[in-house]
């Protein structure tokens, strides 16, 4: 069953009079429970595709179906609500709320999805233990290292039990050692929870984890390949 279907997607950005076509007639499908890696150079369109999948941005034309919902038909407020309920997003720069503690960052995600219940709080506690930062639950993000912040961001993305995890260069702002640790945690948690995940990266080293690799070559050619198990 296809969890995500992308049909004839086009996306351009305007810079003055110049038009930069980033995605040109893209057709894709992603299966439920799979880890898909979007591979390509910086500026190749990986983040653009993730933003379209999450509903942060909309395509110029084409359709995107997620779990049978056509998100390209939704208006902005509805897309935001859909995103916060169904998508867990992990950003390159963590994007934790600096004025909320680690615990409150997770609780905000629960509150926005109507999951701020004793069970939800218990799940937040469980995930903080899983990423090894329960002891830092009352700290503010700015006193944590980059690796610790990204581990919190992973916990936040999973805490409301979304159908899909989207990760945009999750190790792009981390050193190699920390990046390995973060990927290990992310892979472990996603697989343990049976989640579908799409990760954008420019690092070929991560392709070994993927069920499916979609490589961005040039502006319009997208090569999809299946990992041989």
């Amino acid at each position: 069953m296809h969890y995500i279907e992308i049909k004839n997607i086009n996306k351009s950005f305007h810079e003055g009079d110049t038009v930069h076509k980033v995605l040109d007639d893209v057709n894709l499908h992603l299966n439920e429970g799979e880890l898909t890696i979007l591979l390509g150079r910086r500026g190749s369109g990986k983040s653009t595709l993730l933003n379209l999948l999450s509903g942060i941005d909309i395509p110029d034309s084409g359709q995107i179906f997620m779990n049978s919902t056509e998100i390209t038909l939704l208006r902005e407020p509805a897309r935001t609500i859909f995103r916060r309920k169904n998508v867990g997003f992990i950003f390159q720069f963590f994007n934790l709320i600096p004025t909320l503690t680690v615990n409150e960052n997770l609780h905000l995600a629960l509150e926005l999805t109507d999951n701020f219940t004793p069970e939800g709080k218990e799940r937040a506690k469980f995930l903080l233990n899983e990423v090894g930062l329960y002891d830092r639950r009352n700290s503010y993000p700015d006193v944590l290292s980059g690796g610790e912040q990204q581990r919190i961001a992973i916990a936040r993305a999973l805490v409301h039990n979304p159908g899909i995890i989207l990760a945009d260069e999750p190790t792009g702002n981390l050193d190699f050692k920390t990046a390995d640790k973060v990927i290990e945690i992310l892979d472990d948690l996603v697989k343990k929870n049976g989640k579908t995940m799409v990760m954008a990266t420019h690092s070929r080293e991560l392709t070994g984890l993927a069920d499916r690799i979609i490589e961005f070559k040039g502006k319009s050619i997208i090569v999809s390949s299946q990992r041989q198990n």
Partner: protein
Amino acid sequence: MYPPRGKIDHFIPKAGLRYLFTHPWQTFLSSIGIMLGVAVILSIDIANESSGKAFDISMESVTGKTTHRLLSRQGDIDLSTYIKLRTEAGITISAPVIEENVKILIGNGYTATFLGLDPFSEREFRNFISADLTGDNTELSQLLSSNNKVLIPESFAREAKLTIGDTLSLKWGDGVLRVVCAGLIKSNEDVSGNRIEQFLISDIETARKLFNKGNFVSHIDLILTPSEVERITKTILSNPTLQLSTAEKSNETAKSMTEAFRLNLNAMSLLALIVGLFLIYNAMTFSVVQRRRLLALLRAAGVTQKDIFIQVMAESIFIASIGTIGGIVGGIFLGKIMLGL
């Protein structure tokens, strides 16, 4: 698709308010911006309103409760008309007035209106000659029994450092008149501290002698009902040299003289409003721009534009409340300073 109505998220306000408290200088500066805006608008408005009120009070002090004024087209009005008013037209509430412009020769000089009034007719029109004398009525008897005695406003006496018994020199035409201060009037002028016009008051007999009026007065003040107006029209106004005007019309000349003054104040008030609005707008823009990253992070976390708008509005109201309270206090203080200038 939307969360149930009435649910109040509390981590969003918490994130916003913590930002305000963890950046106290930014919050303080935003509040100061609003405070200045409110203070500027309020102080100019206080000064404007007070000046206008002072003018109205000053006009009321001179005209009192007068509804109409009997004037002569030839200048002064014969006292025989006053007698006719009472006998032929049956108008009892009337007061003859001698009004002259003089210059009080103290310091750089003060322009003043000299009013010669009949204390026995005045009670119905103006209250300062019959009731508001400071101390007992010794001054009133002096005013009536002696020549060249005048009453002056208490505030003017204080400003010009005059006391009862002091002699004042008044320039009238080419001559100089000498009068003695017999008492002080507690005038309404003290309400604002601003004075549009000074006035001196004497008994009408003193004024007649000082200004060589003989059997003439400047005008006769009247408080008339519509039927009395009709009666006067039929009797007294048969003399074509006489005219009956309303008190409002009589004040129009003085009002037109102060029109430019009021226009300036209004222009200043509008300017203050623009400056104030600009200050408030800038303060609020500064406050939002400084938190742009936090707002973007909240949006990325899945907070809707509507929730962000509500949050920004709530914080703006919070900052604006602090600024407005400070601005009102500052505005009253500034207004008082401006009125003292």
